């Protein structure tokens, strides 16, 4: 009977082992569709990290610009308010015939009451042919006001002299000029005036590219006539920008002076999403079963990151030192593979998993006594490493307005704090998750070099936003007595907040 049963096996083996069946065409189509789907998912996964980084950077850039602009405006307002709040400008210009270009040097009364002459001229040519204003009429006074970013000249006419004319005309900024008239560019557009209901009147505004001035022609000025800032003449904008720039540059100079006075110490808490990879080299071991190429082909780096705190010390205007403490996490996934049992360092036979970061032994409960050479199917394995690093680097930086650009290079000592390996092996109807909390073959310490570029955007005297793309590269292998030598490399986008102390 036994012999007969053995025959049964042979019958089926010889009949079916080399059999061939033609699959239906639909099967390939399904495989084809699945492969397309896998490709799409893989591309999605591949660029997911890049997308996240890009969004984060855009967000930070947006916040920085917004904050910077807001702070800049506040500073401008403070600066101007402190110098020229409610300045009164005398108007001898209007005593002269109005049909000529006239200019004057305005004496500005500062708030303190001291009269000082500055190099500012009011240039204004007015035509007042309408019933409202006759040539020769002059406003009682022109007042220059700046409330924050809102700059205006108030031309005050006496109501008693001309009841029909405007009581007050507000003009927008940039009627104070510092240079000579050139390049007249007439512009006509009724949009520039708001509040004037007399549409029949012809309104013409002439503006000069630099410096701008306003010319009123055939126009009756009414109370509360104004040129709204949002309808500013395009030709005025460059000038306005120039004015602001000149003010900004003076502020920037002040700020640089301030910066020089700032403390030499600063700290930067930061976070850096990293793109990580290993440079693998074969160990000079002729008896090895796994090569660097093998390991490289089956491993993929997952999301890695570094975060920590750095401290900066400014030696002089350009040079500085940086140190601190960092915590880096690296996660690597290994494709499914068959693992084999072999004696471990203590002579016990266990299943060995080789990785680029060393090796680990597992002994699943369902296979407690394997023989050398026994195999198990391991599904995807993941191993993660965590290092505490102490970097020391030299920095060279230059300040440009609110930005600080710098170069940084140095070394870092990295101390291994965690090396964990997790895999899932087959265990009948269920899978068994095996964890190795100590990956063997790893050095406790390795050294790495680092090089990077710093871009700081100053939010205020104390705080800057830091963006620093940084390349870190291992100077020695993280592995000892293992199959391959591993040199971790990372490229990280450091984002942090620098706080002056």
């Amino acid at each position, binding site marked *: 009977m036994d012999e007969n049963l053995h025959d*049964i096996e042979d019958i089926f083996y010889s009949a079916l082992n080399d059999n061939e069946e033609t699959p239906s065409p639909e099967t390939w189509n399904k495989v084809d569709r699945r492969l397309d789907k896998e490709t799409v998912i893989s591309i999605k996964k591949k660029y997911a990290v890049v997308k996240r980084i890009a969004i984060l950077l855009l967000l930070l850039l947006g916040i920085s610009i917004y904050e910077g602009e807001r702070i800049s405006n506040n500073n401008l307002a403070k600066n101007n308010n402190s110098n020229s709040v409610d300045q009164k400008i005398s108007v001898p210009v209007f005593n002269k015939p109005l049909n000529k270009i006239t200019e004057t040097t305005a004496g500005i009364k500062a708030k303190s009451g001291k009269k000082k002459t500055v190099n500012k001229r009011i240039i204004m040519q007015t035509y007042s042919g309408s019933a409202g204003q006759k040539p020769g009429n002059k406003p009682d006074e022109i007042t220059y006001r700046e409330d924050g970013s809102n700059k205006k000249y108030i031309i005050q006419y006496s109501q008693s002299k001309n009841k029909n004319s405007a009581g007050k005309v507000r003009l927008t900024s940039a009627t104070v000029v510092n240079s000579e008239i050139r390049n007249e560019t007439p512009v006509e557009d009724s949009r520039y005036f708001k509040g004037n209901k007399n549409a029949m009147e012809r309104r013409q505004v002439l503006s000069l590219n630099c410096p701008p001035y306003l010319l009123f022609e055939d126009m009756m000025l009414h109370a509360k006539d104004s040129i709204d800032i949002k309808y500013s003449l395009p030709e005025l904008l460059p000038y306005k920008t120039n004015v602001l720039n000149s003010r900004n540059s003076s502020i920037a100079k002040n700020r640089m002076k301030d910066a020089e006075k700032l403390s030499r110490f600063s700290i930067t808490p930061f976070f850096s999403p990293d793109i990580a990879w290993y440079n693998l080299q074969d160990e000079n071991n002729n008896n090895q079963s796994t090569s660097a190429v093998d390991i490289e082909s089956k491993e993929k780096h997952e999301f890695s990151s570094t975060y920590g705190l750095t401290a900066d010390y400014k030696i002089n205007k350009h040079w500085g030192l940086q140190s601190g403490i960092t915590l880096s996490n690296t996660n690597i996934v290994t494709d499914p593979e068959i693992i084999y049992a072999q004696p471990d360092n203590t002579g016990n036979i266990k299943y060995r998993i080789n990785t680029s970061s060393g090796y680990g032994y597992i002994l699943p409960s369902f296979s407690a006594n394997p023989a050398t050479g026994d195999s198990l199917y391991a599904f995807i394995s993941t191993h993660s490493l965590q290092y505490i690093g102490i970097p020391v680097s030299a920095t060279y930086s230059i300040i440009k307005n609110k930005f600080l650009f710098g170069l940084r290079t140095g070394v870092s000592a990295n101390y291994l704090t965690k090396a964990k390996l997790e895999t899932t092996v087959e265990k009948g109807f269920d899978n068994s998750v095996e964890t190795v909390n100590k990956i063997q073959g790893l050095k406790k310490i390795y050294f790495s070099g680092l090089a990077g570029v710093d871009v700081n955007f100053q939010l205020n005297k104390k705080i800057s936003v830091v963006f620093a793309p940084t390349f870190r590269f291992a100077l020695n292998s993280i592995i000892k007595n293992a199959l391959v030598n591993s040199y971790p490399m990372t490229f990280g986008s450091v984002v942090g907040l620098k706080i002056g102390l």
Partner: protein
Amino acid sequence: MDSVTINRNSTELLEHLRQLIQSCIGGNRFSQNRLYDQFAPKMLSVCMRYGKNREEAEEIMQEGFVQVFKSLHNFKYVGSFEGWIRKIMMYCAIQHYRANPKMYLVVDIENVTEQQICKEDILSRLQKKELLEMVQALSPAYRIVFDLYVFEGMKHREIAQLLGISEGTSKSNFFDAKKILQKAIANRLKVAENY
């Protein structure tokens, strides 16, 4: 001279296969289709033994080929490429077996008549298709043990580890499977004789 020619042809074939694999790794769909065409008939035959019917076999093979294309970079050119694909198909079949509800067929094997049947006799009188249907008719638990033992050459200890059952269960399932198959063959031969 002939052996030299054969060697050269085999080297050329290997080189051709290597190029085809590299092209598949690069994601060339045309090459993937060629590789599929080359191995699909044999692999479907393998999957037919693990599935209960053709549809299930094609489902297993489809999953298997997706895994093959995803893992091609892991192939080390050591050993047979066909054997490597076959192994993947086997693992996919096991996964499929686990994923689907297990239905254990209660088989009364007491009534199985034991006949002394000659192997050649059976092969001459039964078609391959009929034998395949007999294997497919086995319960999943019997079928997978029978397939792993007979066609993959695994030992009961390995089968037990792979399926998460005891070695004794593996042996018992195998024995029962053989009994059922023996009975099925005997019945089929009896029917054939009557005609």
